[in-house]
């Protein structure tokens, strides 16, 4: 039996639905010794911004029960650095390259970065990261004036964000942004959503209405961890993003909610570490999946998961991955 693993995300046709999550796979070259990169369905880059970013003050990560917190702060070489140093390497791998983009300067900067990527045909798609909890978001600054108790950490020389409101926490802001970017590019647009919301399906709908080709979810959940010995936060930025198996049930639930609300393909992610966790995401409605934190534990996790999906389909006599998508029996 031949199993069909190909899936479509907007204009993009993937040989298989196993991708990597932005920020957990660098620019792919870091992993070349550990797996045949050309077997991946697609590669999503670390999020880039128009200008280089040096990222947040360390310590930037810590381990938590079945997960980890990170506040990298989008350290990246900037668009030009990416195009010169990273894209040529990515291009050679021969699988679709999805470039994750964020902005430090509002909608205009998003549009500028995306427009510049238009010229590169090796950029297969763009993922709009409007859900990073680890940078100050200028787009939403009008939404949340700083009020209430002044945190004592504000006195320290650490980066403490005045504004942690994300674009993807507001349906209107999401709609506006995606709409503007949509006008600027014909490339496949994926909007990456935050789980730090009351109703994620509402945000997904805003992205769909604004012309996004797909949504990816979830980005990290905001969390915090304290070292009781030193009474200090384990991550310098105090609040950080939680990822790994700990967040999986939340992610699966959100994929299911979004699947019922919109028609766009969903790229599901959050705590996938093995075949069965990947399958949960397809059954909940994902067209493709992203492997994130698992890459740190086993750099070849994607390949084992891909193999596992193939065997599962074969064993259950399913000849097309499409038949699995949203197959949850309720």
């Amino acid at each position, binding site marked *: 039996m031949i199993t069909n693993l190909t899936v479509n995300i907007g204009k993009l046709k993937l040989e298989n639905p196993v991708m990597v999550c932005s*920020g*957990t*796979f*660098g620019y792919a070259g*870091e*992993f070349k*010794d*550990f797996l045949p990169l050309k077997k991946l369905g697609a590669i999503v880059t*670390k999020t880039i911004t128009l200008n280089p970013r*040096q*990222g947040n*003050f*360390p*310590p*930037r*990560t*810590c*381990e938590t029960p*079945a*997960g*980890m917190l*990170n506040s*990298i702060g989008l*350290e990246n070489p900037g668009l030009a650095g990416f195009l010169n140093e990273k894209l040529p390497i990515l291009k050679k791998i021969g699988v679709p390259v999805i470039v994750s983009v964020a902005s430090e300067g509002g909608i205009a900067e998003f549009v500028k970065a995306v427009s510049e990527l238009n010229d590169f045909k090796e950029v297969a798609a763009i993922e709009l990261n409007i859900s990073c909890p680890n940078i100050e978001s200028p787009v939403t600054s009008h939404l949340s004036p700083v009020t209430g108790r002044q945190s004592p950490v504000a006195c320290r*020389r650490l980066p403490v964000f005045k504004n942690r409101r994300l674009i993807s926490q507001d349906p209107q802001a999401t709609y506006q942004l995606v709409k503007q970017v949509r006008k600027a590019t014909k490339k496949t647009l994926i909007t990456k959503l935050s789980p730090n919301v009351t109703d994620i399906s509402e945000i997904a709908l805003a992205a769909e209405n604004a012309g996004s080709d797909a949504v990816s979810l979830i980005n990290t959940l905001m969390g915090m961890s304290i070292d009781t010995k030193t009474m200090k936060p384990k991550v310098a930025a105090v609040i950080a993003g939680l990822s*790994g*198996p700990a967040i999986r049930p939340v992610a699966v639930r959100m994929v299911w909610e979004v699947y019922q609300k919109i028609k766009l393909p969903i790229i599901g992610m959050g705590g996938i*570490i093995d075949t069965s966790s990947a399958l949960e995401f397809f059954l909940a409605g994902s067209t493709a999946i992203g492997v994130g*934190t698992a*890459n*740190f*534990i*086993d*750099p*070849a996790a994607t390949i084992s998961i891909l193999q596992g999906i193939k065997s599962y389909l074969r064993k259950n006599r399913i000849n097309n991955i499409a038949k699995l998508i949203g197959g949850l029996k309720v």
Partner: protein
Amino acid sequence: MFQVKAKIIQNKQVKKNFFHLLVDAPEIAGKALPGQFLNIKVSDNLEPLLRRPLGVHRVSKNNIAMLYEVVGNGTQILSQRKAGEYLDIIGPLGNGFDYQSPVTCHLSPVLVAGGMGVAPLLFLADFLAHSKSFKSLVFIGAKTKSQLTCVQEFRELGCKVKIATDDGSMGFKGRVSDLLTHFLQATGDRRQATIFSCGPRPMLKAVSEISRKFKIPAQISLEEHMSCGIGACMGCVVQTTSGYKRICKEGPVFHADEIVWEREK
């Protein structure tokens, strides 16, 4: 870089909380250089989730030895692993010590270890002794006599060992960096010496200051919490004169004058 399932040959308690781990990993053993490290999955389940970085302590043909202290959950679980079991290990990782520079050295290479910092420095001393016939001068600092380790191993390599303990139970009473300062003050010709150091952060900071004061180049091995260990996640950075650098990739060994210590607590 390799990812291997390495068989544990021995995982032996050598002191109260110190363990000596020997694994069979020919690929890694064939490539590992002093100052490089391995990233080890200590369990086969989610507890703990992430790998644990350990320096390469010794290398023989097919085997790699590590020396580690049990400090928390991960190292505790590792200490329970038995000979015959397998560990998923990635390595060799990072940039080790640049031992090309002391080739013209008149004064012996100076190795400065604090606590578990002896682990990678023994491999360096071994390497310098065998490939370059250098007998290193080794300064070891520990809290107390019972926590001193590897003294004999260094001596067997022909190294001269100087000891400092916080409580004075053996050798100089005080910090190893102070012992180093005293030594350098008393030594006339310090030109072309190089310091190689590994240990707790405050000690490395002190060594860096000594390096600047006495104009002796120093290479220091830093630690930071790591997630991937292969340069992908940007988690384990240190502030340098040319921006943040990844300890797992550009490091763990850095030139002391590259590190920006201002924001250190």
